């Protein structure tokens, strides 16, 4: 099952190779041309009918947040730093996989019995954490682990509850899965499906891909925060699980093109597909990079809500995911043979 394979593959920002190879294998028969650029983006091109000359870019990122090996202690424990934005508090008592060989390791913590009451009150800082791979000493560890090795969460894809999925990296393998679906259809316009790298460390791959493609319009498909959990006020929920994919209005990196955002929303409403607006404006995604490319690209973003995003246990609702696929398909069909907002000459 594609989403299972995608989320279980390890591809921390800067090391997306495994995910890239998986995707290349999936899409090779559906594209007219596939290129991989120097930062590792896949740019998959489907030619249009030759009459509709606009180019549309779909974008999802292949990378996930993770960790990277920054040191090995004399006793053989691994020191690390986070790659991308991770809440440090979730790291304790988790399993990880290190490097290309997926060496298993654990992030432990001093047993509660051995802690002072004051210690227990404070969150543990990353600089005091370490990964245990069972090595005897530094030399032993160095046989299996090197400086700069990337570390991913060890977390299985599991379907549970009522139509829910728990996995790591739903942000943004679910987006990649949506793009792969879209590549299976034919369109009147030129389609560029971009599977980007290094979104989590600064929307990097998308900046480069957008420069190469210079599309007329772009849609980003993402996984986004869903905070409809105890402890948050209703007006602070970014999105709600089960209420459908979320259309972005504005975030720290981009302001969605209003016409495109409304089109996505109304396509959902008209076709009785649950759809919501993203309620908060924190964070940013590849739309921020794409929109500012060249002469400017009208951009929108549609996201599937994920609880506990950026952790090994992100949770999404399969109906929201299916809804996202449906709306993106309708959106692309809607744009077929239609002129879009470009450069307007008044005088």
């Amino acid at each position, binding site marked *: 099952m594609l989403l299972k394979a995608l989320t279980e593959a390890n591809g921390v920002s800067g*090391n997306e190779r495994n995910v890239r190879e998986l995707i290349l294998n999936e899409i090779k028969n559906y594209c007219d041309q596939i290129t991989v650029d*120097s*930062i590792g983006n896949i740019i998959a091109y489907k030619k249009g009918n030759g009459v509709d000359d606009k180019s549309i870019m779909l974008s999802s990122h292949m990378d996930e947040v993770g*960790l*990277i*090996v920054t*040191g090995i202690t004399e006793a053989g424990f691994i020191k690390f730093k986070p790659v991308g934005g991770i809440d440090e508090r979730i790291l304790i008592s988790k399993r990880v996989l290190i490097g290309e060989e997926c060496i298993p390791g654990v992030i432990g913590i001093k047993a509660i019995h051995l802690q002072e009451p004051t210690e227990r009150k404070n969150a543990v800082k990353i*600089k005091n954490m370490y990964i245990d791979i069972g090595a005897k000493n530094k030399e032993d560890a160095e046989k299996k682990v090197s400086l*700069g090795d990337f570390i991913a969460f060890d977390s299985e894809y599991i379907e549970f509850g009522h139509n829910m999925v728990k996995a790591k990296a739903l942000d943004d393998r679910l987006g990649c899965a949506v793009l792969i679906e879209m590549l299976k259809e034919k369109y009147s316009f030129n389609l560029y499906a971009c599977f980007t790298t290094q979104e989590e460390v600064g929307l990097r791959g998308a900046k*480069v891909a957008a420069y190469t493609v210079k599309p007329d319009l772009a849609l980003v498909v993402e996984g986004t925060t869903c905070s409809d959990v105890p402890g948050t006020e209703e007006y602070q929920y970014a999105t709600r699980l089960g209420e459908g994919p979320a259309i972005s209005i504005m975030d720290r990196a981009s302001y969605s093109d209003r016409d495109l955002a409304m089109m996505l929303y109304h396509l959902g409403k008209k076709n009785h597909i649950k759809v919501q607006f993203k309620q908060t404006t924190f964070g940013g995604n590849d739309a921020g990079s794409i929109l500012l490319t060249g002469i400017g690209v009208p951009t929108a973003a549609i996201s599937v809500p994920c609880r506990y995003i950026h952790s090994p246990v992100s949770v999404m609702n399969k109906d929201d995911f299916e809804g996202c696929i449906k709306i993106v398909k309708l959106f692309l069909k809607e744009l077929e043979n239609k002129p879009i907002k470009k450069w307007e000459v008044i005088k």
Partner: protein
Amino acid sequence: MNTQEFLHSLSRSTGVSGHEYMYSKEIERVFHDFCDEVRSDELGNVIGIKKGNAENPKKVMLAAHMDEIGLMVKNIDEKGFISFVNIGGVDPRILLAQEVIVHGKEDLLGIIGAKPPHLQTENESNQAVKIEDLSIDVGLDYEKVKEIVSIGDTITFKAESKKLLNNYISGKSLDDRAGIIVIIECLKELKNFRHEADVFAVATVQEEVGLRGAIVSSYHINPDIGIAIDVCHGETPDASKEDTFSTGKGPVITLGPNIHPALSKKIREIANEYNIAYQTDVDPGNTGTDAWAIQVARSGIPTLLLSIPLRYMHTTVETLCFNDIKNAGRLLALFIQKLEGGLEELLCC
């Protein structure tokens, strides 16, 4: 060309971000000795081109920044004291009892003094000062100061460069004049080798205020490979071992998302083959150097970062071991020499 002497000379030169033209001619002159062509671009980056001998040469860009951190005149009060803002990351604590040069219509010596201890409250003596509470005393009255100094004039630190033991050098602005010397060392070595690629040696501007020179120069040159040369933190008693590197044990090669993995692998192989000592740094994101800008220029550029361990960064007593610079220059020259043929195989992801 005695590169160690030139480093001392560069360290004493002044050119704060945005004002590198105050001394960039010194670099242009030296580039002329080693390059086929020297030019500068719209923002003042100095670019020296040393041609390779291939038919369709690939382009390798080397970037080290010319600018230094410093200060700028914000206001002149009615007593003639000058208040200022920082250009780049200046630790306010180094400013107390510091000698500076105010570059007005003429250069003026200025003193940033501290409130005398017997006038300080108990709290004050324990707290770090803030830039907005400091001012520069040029020993002139308001009228005279206004004649010579304007709002926006730059201010640099007055600091001698010194030779310490064991080929160590201390001075201001070794960040990143050390990088410029690495490039010159590399160009020197390349004179003895045949190399296929065209080498673009770039002394970039405004790195300290946002990698600005690198952004425009990498767009302009659009190289096939970009290599930034900067400094990293040298080990000192008060800093953690994890974030610092030994001086004298070789340049530092960085790994991480900002760096192309095939390139970092190749340069380490070359270092091993030629017994050039090096150290490894792992950076999980923005390396904070020109490499971050170069990597995402246009359609993307495979990037490397080479750093010289430097103690007391962003002070007037930055300290490094010159041997690291020589070794870095040599390593870069070997790396460039070994770039043969099409780079597709090397760079394919």
